[in-house]
């Protein structure tokens, strides 16, 4: 029943998501009757498919009733969303929940040896966490596209008469090209606001020739422009910004942070400052935008990648007063900054960290989704990779420091902690979200191992690869890819091609994010990524060289998939191959984008500096940790074969969920025999070649002599696996093939209905061969 419920809910999920993809952004009215109608429609559509395939009427009715009640709950809870969003969310939750229960039962009651069980359990937890993260992405996407009522959306602030507080704009700089900073300062000189000062804070730039001209520029721009060079200053950018606060005009009430490469619109202050008339507002953030975002696929997809955060994540977070202060193009109340103790100097994403401490004190934040300035994106893929590494590392630092403040019980432990549940959720998911790429790599690793073991026909297994385990994650993956492309298209107004390019741009940085997550966990101080040194003057070769690890992983995945399918062609290895090609493509995207970024390099000419702070961590060295960990895993994995698997089907296996074959799910085999997935599940079920005559009494028996043996639908190695038999299992022989040099026994599957073919070399036969009828 569980498996049927799971397939039914997957159907509901798929139907509701497809409907959302079509109508989710178009249906702009919220109405309980419409939502109920939508919910009923989705449930009925799913039921219709189920009735004609695998379903049982009573079960379908019961499950539909439960799904209806659950959907009703979410319709009430998510009143600000439209019907497609509400129903998709409810159905996705049901499917995810049922799949987690299914995989737990499969893990818990499969006949595995102890080591396999430990691995299976780890895999289960990994899978469960990944699904939770996927749910959070789904929620965010639906929240911004299907939301009809925005409670904290501010498109334009009304000016407050007489409210013109002094603003101190701080421009942190490190080794910046003078002409870049000059453009920024000139744009600041043109601000349409009467009461502000600009403080250029250059920290630790080694050459006087680089920072001295800034002093001259400030002098030329007037008395409101000040320049400060800090030498041998600790704390990197945040250390310099903390000192800059001491040098702001005492009259300044608001501090603005502007990156040295940003050209700011004249209305920046005039439009945003009125927000601070509300004393509860502690900081205001606007999107970061870029002026060099067109001209090539790399630049455009990178640009959309940045935009995703400001068009999807931030609006959703803003609804719950849970935005982050993203540094540049944001304003923050000076008194609040002083109250929280300034910028944290240990954290390399000090802006986001500060916003959490501000919200913790109960202040309000505001996101205004309108860009007021444009900066420069990283020069090439290498720069992008380093930037993503830094952001992720900072995110993990925040999580490490504040995890306790984000827990559900945080308020009981610290009554001063005024974070709401939603704020805690967003910050927690924001931090944990980085680990998606770590899990993705682990999945790729497990898939490659699966393919390799399959290649060598090794009996090692961690968890039975049931049809459901292959089908449902594939459905999830497909739906989430569609959802991602859909949200990109809707919020960023891009073509499908650009949405796919943006998606791959995201995924191509998975390796850098994985390294940053690991470093973030093991390193206390800030580090930056140092990519492998160039060993050639060829730019193209260099572009590939900086992504050598991604290339290696990608190639390994694709090769493993192709070899697995090539050696044993069945639908399972085909699915494995597809999954591995997908995983491989995510990593192969890295060298591709790196090569594409050459066009940008050529267009820009002069490299844009990427600020590097903390101590360097060599990519090669960081990657060796990953390799070492993989080796340990493979070694431990290899140990599984030295532990005996259960000789016979253990008692506890009766709690296993029954599986459905793919044929059943699409309705081709409505009456097929159900088999337990623990002993290998049914591709061909028990539809082996039927013998013309079968003996009335069993005259011979076979005892399996290998760790595990495939019992097939036909007497050949690619004959479609029906079940797996384990060492020591004794089975009744009903027939044989007519080749005694290469015997195959036609046997009765123990404890079940159905027969299959067991290769003679994997079992010891007792009885008389002559008395066994030949089956053709």
């Amino acid at each position, binding site marked *: 029943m569980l498996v049927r419920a799971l397939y039914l809910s997957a159907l509901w999920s798929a139907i509701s998501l497809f409907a959302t993809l079509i109508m989710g952004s178009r249906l702009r009215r919220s109405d309980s009757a419409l939502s109920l109608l939508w919910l009923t429609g989705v449930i009925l559509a799913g039921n219709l498919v189920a009735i004609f395939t695998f379903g049982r009427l009573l079960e379908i009715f019961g499950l539909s009733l439960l799904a209806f009640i659950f959907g009703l709950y979410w319709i009430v809870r998510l009143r600000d969303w439209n019907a497609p969003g509400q129903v998709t969310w409810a159905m996705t939750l049901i499917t995810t929940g049922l799949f987690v229960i299914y995989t737990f039962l499969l893990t*818990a*009651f499969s*006949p*595995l*040896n*102890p080591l396999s*069980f*430990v691995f299976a*359990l*780890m895999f289960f*937890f990994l899978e469960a966490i990944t699904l939770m993260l996927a749910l959070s992405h789904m929620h965010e996407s639906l929240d911004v596209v299907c939301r009809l009522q925005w409670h904290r959306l501010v498109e334009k602030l009304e000016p407050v008469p007489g409210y013109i507080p002094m603003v101190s704009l701080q421009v942190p700089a490190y080794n910046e090209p003078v002409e870049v900073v000059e453009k920024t300062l000139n744009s600041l000189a043109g601000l349409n606001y009467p009461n502000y000062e600009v403080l250029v804070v250059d920290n630790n730039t080694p050459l006087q020739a680089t920072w001295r001209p800034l*002093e001259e520029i400030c002098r030329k721009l007037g008395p409101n422009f*000040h*320049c*400060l*060079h*800090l*030498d*041998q*200053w*600790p704390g990197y950018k945040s250390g310099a910004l*903390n*000192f800059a*606060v*001491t*040098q702001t005009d*005492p009259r300044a009430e608001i501090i603005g942070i502007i990156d040295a490469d940003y050209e700011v619109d004249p209305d920046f202050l005039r439009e945003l400052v009125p927000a601070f008339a509300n004393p509860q507002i502690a900081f205001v953030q606007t999107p970061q935008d870029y002026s060099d975002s067109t001209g090539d696929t790399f630049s455009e997809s990178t640009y959309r990648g940045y935009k995703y955060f400001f068009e999807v994540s931030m609006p959703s977070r803003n609804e719950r007063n849970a935005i982050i202060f993203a540094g540049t193009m944001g304003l923050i109340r000076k008194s609040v*900054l*002083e*109250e*929280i*103790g*300034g910028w*944290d*100097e*240990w*954290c390399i994403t000090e802006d986001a960290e500060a916003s959490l401490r501000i919200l913790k004190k109960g202040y309000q934040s505001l996101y205004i989704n309108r860009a007021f300035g444009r900066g420069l994106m990283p020069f090439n893929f290498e720069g992008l990779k380093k930037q993503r590494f830094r952001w992720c590392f900072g995110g993990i630092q925040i999580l490490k*420091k504040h995890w306790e403040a984000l827990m559900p*019980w945080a308020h*009981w*432990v*610290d*009554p001063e902690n005024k974070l709401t549940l939603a704020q805690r959720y967003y910050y927690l998911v924001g931090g944990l979200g980085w680990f998606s790429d770590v899990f993705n790599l682990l999945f790729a690793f497990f898939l490659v191992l699966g393919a390799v073991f399959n290649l060598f026909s090794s009996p090692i297994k961690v968890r039975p690869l049931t049809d459901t385990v292959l089908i449902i994650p594939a459905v999830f993956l497909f739906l989430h890819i569609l959802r991602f492309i859909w949200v990109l298209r809707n919020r960023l107004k891009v073509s499908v091609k650009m949405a796919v390019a943006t998606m791959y741009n995201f995924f191509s940085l998975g390796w850098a994010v994985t390294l940053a997550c690991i470093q973030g966990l093991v390193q*206390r*101080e800030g580090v930056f990524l140092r990519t492998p040194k160039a060993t050639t003057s060829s730019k193209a070769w260099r572009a590939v060289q900086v992504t050598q690890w991604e290339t290696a992983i990608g190639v390994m995945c694709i090769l493993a998939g192709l070899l697995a399918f090539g050696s044993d062609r069945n639908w399972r290895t085909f699915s494995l191959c597809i999954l591995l090609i997908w995983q491989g493509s995510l990593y192969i995207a890295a060298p591709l984008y790196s090569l594409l970024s050459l066009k940008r390099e050529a267009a820009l000419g002069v490299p844009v500096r990427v600020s590097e702070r903390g101590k360097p961590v060599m990519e090669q060295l960081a990657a060796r940790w990953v390799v070492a960990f993989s080796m340990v895993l493979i070694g431990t994995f290899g140990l599984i074969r030295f532990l005996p698997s*259960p*000789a*016979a089907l*253990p*008692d*506890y296996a009766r709690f296993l969920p029954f599986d459905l074959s793919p044929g059943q799910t699409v309705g081709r085999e409505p009456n097929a025999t159900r088999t337990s997935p623990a002993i290998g599940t049914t591709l061909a079920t028990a539809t082996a070649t039927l013998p013309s005559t079968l003996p009335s009494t069993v005259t011979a028996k076979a005892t399996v002599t290998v760790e595990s043996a495939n019992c097939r639908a036909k007497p050949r190695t690619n004959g479609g696996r029906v079940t797996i038999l384990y060492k020591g299992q004794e089975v009744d022989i009903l027939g044989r093939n007519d080749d005694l040099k290469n015997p195959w026994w036609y046997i009765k599957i123990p404890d079940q209905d159905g027969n299959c073919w067991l290769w003679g070399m994997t079992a010891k036969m007792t009885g008389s061969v002559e008395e066994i009828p030949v089956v053709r």
Partner: protein
Amino acid sequence: MQKNLQTEVSQLLEEAGQFARQGKREKAYQSCLKATTVAPDESLAWYARSRNAPSREEQLMCLSRAYSLDPNDPETKKELHSAVHTLLKQEPFLAYVYETEQFYQVRSGRDLLVNIPKNRTFETPYLKKRPGLAQPAFRWLTFAVLALFLGGVGAVLFAPVAAFQALRLQASAPTDEERMRLLIVFILSVIIWLAAIPISWLLLIRFYPS
């Protein structure tokens, strides 16, 4: 002795005040100089000297000293800020020397050591944060969570240790916050222990599959 010293400093400062009012800056400065020599830890003397200092550098040095002796005096803070501001207008170079919770000590481009107020609450830096009372209990709880992922048997052992630590430390918890934190650790330990039992059972039955 201390009283005599204070009287002498007060007289000198009063004298300096009179000279300053008469426009005799040099004499006023001499009195202040004497006062800072007699009582080098008297912030008021340094502040008065700064007001009569013959050069901006000396004024900055005196204000800086006055501030380090009495960081809460608003007048000193205000004038120090203004003096630093003027200095930076001439030479925008500052090198880091050290810092305390109240101020940075920096070296200017003209080799002057200046103390600059931080004007912000001081939060214990992350890396220097002292371990909390509940840390031993948290450590065992972490072990228990990790063990739960690895088959659960370890969690059956570690979770009670974490719970025991939490109970033991309850008695010595100095604040309500710590007591609540320990209570949470205790509850979590019990939950993990309860979850670990069936998972461990699932692992153990695999050793005896029959």
